[in-house]
């Protein structure tokens, strides 16, 4: 049963295989946490403006305050982000309670054993160049990671609790006063740990696979063998048990769809792409006050060409004069520049996936020439339809739908209606 632990497998074999280390849910939580911490640290540091307690330069406080508009806005934003953070953690706690909160897992991920204490000592001495002792074998998390986890596990409830006390003024003044101090102290403890964590993940060369495992969920077996030997043995033992039929056969861990998608070779699952698109759309509303679009930009481009080719015609025409007016730059429009970005974003995504190639998408029963002609015809009908509706699927359905515009939903319904009915009659084109 323990034969795998005695046979030393050649390292080059180990470097070929990947072992699953992190669940997608944990990866997402990790990066959500990272973003929230960045926001909360920035706003929190700027919120402490008192001469007695301030620890960042005045210009930083002034800058962040000015970006927020007023200090009351800054506080409101800090609280809103904090509440979001607490909500997400609460959801994770509810659904992950049984998976993560029992003794076995906590011992494995947080509790330090004798090997761990030795590891810490030797690790520090080695960094200082005072020792060449080999590092004791480690479990799925090394002693440093465990210490950081312990710190975070203790401090996060403190930060959340004191944050709630301050945000909702729970309790008498004395309690709120101490909550401020505890909030600050707990954050300081986590930040000192966070510095090591970020340094190890982003700079320290040995831990690079650990960083990438937070993107893909997988580590090379070689890395597990060298750096998390006890865990590697566990994994191997389980595999042997499975091979011998002594335990439930477990499927060979494969990277999740998200992990595969993050490596850009295949398309993203619809919900993920939609989530990213939604955040982009939200950012657009926040930054420029309008949504994303496409056909409006085309109209501007066409109006620009008309204003060059036939300026008199364009500025006198009842429709084109909406766009071409003397003294007003035709192209000074959000969608005009946005479309340049759309093309760039498409190229970058296609390039990452290795999809940049001149091809024609078509059904099996038609020739490329027919497809091109139909595409042109379809484009023309779409273009006219988009102008009639004052927007296309992006500008009206997507952006208008997000502000719950009544016209957007009328438009959406008729697009889908025409699409589904048309699909039946035009099935020769596509099937």
């Amino acid at each position, binding site marked *: 049963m323990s034969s795998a632990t005695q046979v030393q497998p050649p390292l080059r074999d180990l470097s070929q295989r990947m072992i699953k280390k992190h669940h997608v849910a944990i990866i997402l939580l990790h990066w959500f946490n990272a973003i929230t911490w960045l926001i909360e640290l920035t706003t929190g540091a700027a919120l402490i403006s008192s001469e007695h*307690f301030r620890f960042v330069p005045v210009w930083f406080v002034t800058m962040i305050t000015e970006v927020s508009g007023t200090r009351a806005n800054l506080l409101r934003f800090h609280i809103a982000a904090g509440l979001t953070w607490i909500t997400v953690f609460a959801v994770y706690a509810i659904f992950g309670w049984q998976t993560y909160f029992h003794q076995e897992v906590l011992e494995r991920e947080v509790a330090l054993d004798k090997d761990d204490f030795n590891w810490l000592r030797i690790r520090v001495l080695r*960094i200082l160049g005072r020792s060449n002792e080999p590092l004791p074998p480690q479990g799925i998390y090394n002693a440093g990671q465990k210490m950081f986890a312990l710190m975070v596990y203790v401090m996060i409830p403190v930060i959340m609790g004191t944050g709630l006390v301050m945000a909702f003024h729970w309790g008498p*003044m*004395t309690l*709120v006063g101490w909550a*401020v*101090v505890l909030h600050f102290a707990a954050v*300081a403890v986590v930040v000192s740990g966070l510095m090591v964590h970020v*340094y190890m993940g982003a700079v320290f060369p040995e831990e690079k696979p650990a960083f990438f495992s937070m993107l893909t969920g997988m580590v090379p077996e070689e890395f597990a063998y060298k750096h998390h030997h006890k865990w590697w043995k566990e994994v191997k033992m389980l595999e042997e048990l499975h091979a011998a039929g002594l335990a439930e056969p477990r499927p060979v861990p494969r990277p999740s769809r998200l992990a595969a998608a993050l490596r850009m070779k295949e398309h993203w699952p619809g919900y993920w792409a939609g989530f990213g698109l939604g955040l982009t759309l939200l950012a657009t509303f926040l930054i420029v006050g309008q949504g994303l679009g496409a056909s409006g930009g085309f109209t501007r481009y066409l109006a620009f060409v008309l204003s060059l080719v036939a300026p008199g015609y364009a500025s006198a025409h009842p429709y084109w004069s909406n766009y071409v007016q003397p003294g007003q730059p035709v192209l000074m429009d959000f969608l005009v520049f946005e479309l340049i970005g759309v093309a760039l974003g498409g190229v970058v995504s296609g390039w990452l996936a290795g999809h940049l190639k001149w091809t024609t998408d078509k059904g099996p029963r038609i020739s490329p020439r027919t497809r091109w002609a139909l595409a042109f015809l379809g484009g023309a009908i779409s273009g006219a339809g988009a102008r009639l509706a004052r927007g296309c699927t992006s500008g009206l359905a997507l952006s208008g739908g997000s502000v719950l515009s009544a016209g957007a939903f009328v438009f959406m319904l008729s697009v889908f209606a025409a699409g589904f009915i048309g699909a039946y009659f035009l099935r020769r084109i596509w099937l």
Partner: protein
Amino acid sequence: MARYAMVTDLTKCVGCQACTAACNSEWDVPPGHARTHVRPTGAVGKFPDLRSAFYVAQCNHCDDPPCVKPCPSGATFQADNGIVKVDRNLCIGCGFCVQACPYEARYLNPATQKVDKCDFCASRLERGRQPACVTTCTAHAKYFGDLEDSSGDIYRMVYTRGARRIESGEVKVGPNVYYLGRRGEPQLVAAMFPPRLPKLPAAGEWWSKVVKPLALALVGATFAGQAVAFFTQLRKGEGQFDE
């Protein structure tokens, strides 16, 4: 920019509490708290040389307000016209400012759990009206105006009639509420109700004197350790870690 100040003529004050009542109703002050209060000194001295006065107290909108510095979030601030205000949207109710005030002018409003105090009726001033306590005073003992307006009543009372502030040898923060009195009432009040020394509550003291230095030391030490590790790594080169 104006520099607002208030003068109370203690010789005229009869201690009727009309100012307190007007203030309470103007600002919905919860029972048990007050933005302005009238305290009698009682009879002081030996018969027949007895004296007494009423201390009409409120926020003094000091030139150097000791309540501004301890406020962690900057909710308490001094406006350009000298009025010390509390931004309710920014106050978290920690109470650091309450003990800092030498004149006990601040209280935690139990309804909102935020700090309240007199703001010279700033919203009435914006509408061009006088503070509620001034318009109500039955004895016409209260005056309010711009200290920089050399033709105004306030200027005259402060600079020529010798209205005085309630200060002590230890606490001199430049209060802007002045007191007049022909029979030494202001001196009596200052002796009976001396301003207390501004102080931070224990949480604030610990924060500024212990927690903040420790936190900076902890983060600094981690940073230094990190720097040592980084330069050791640079010196050895990356190859050594590839094993």
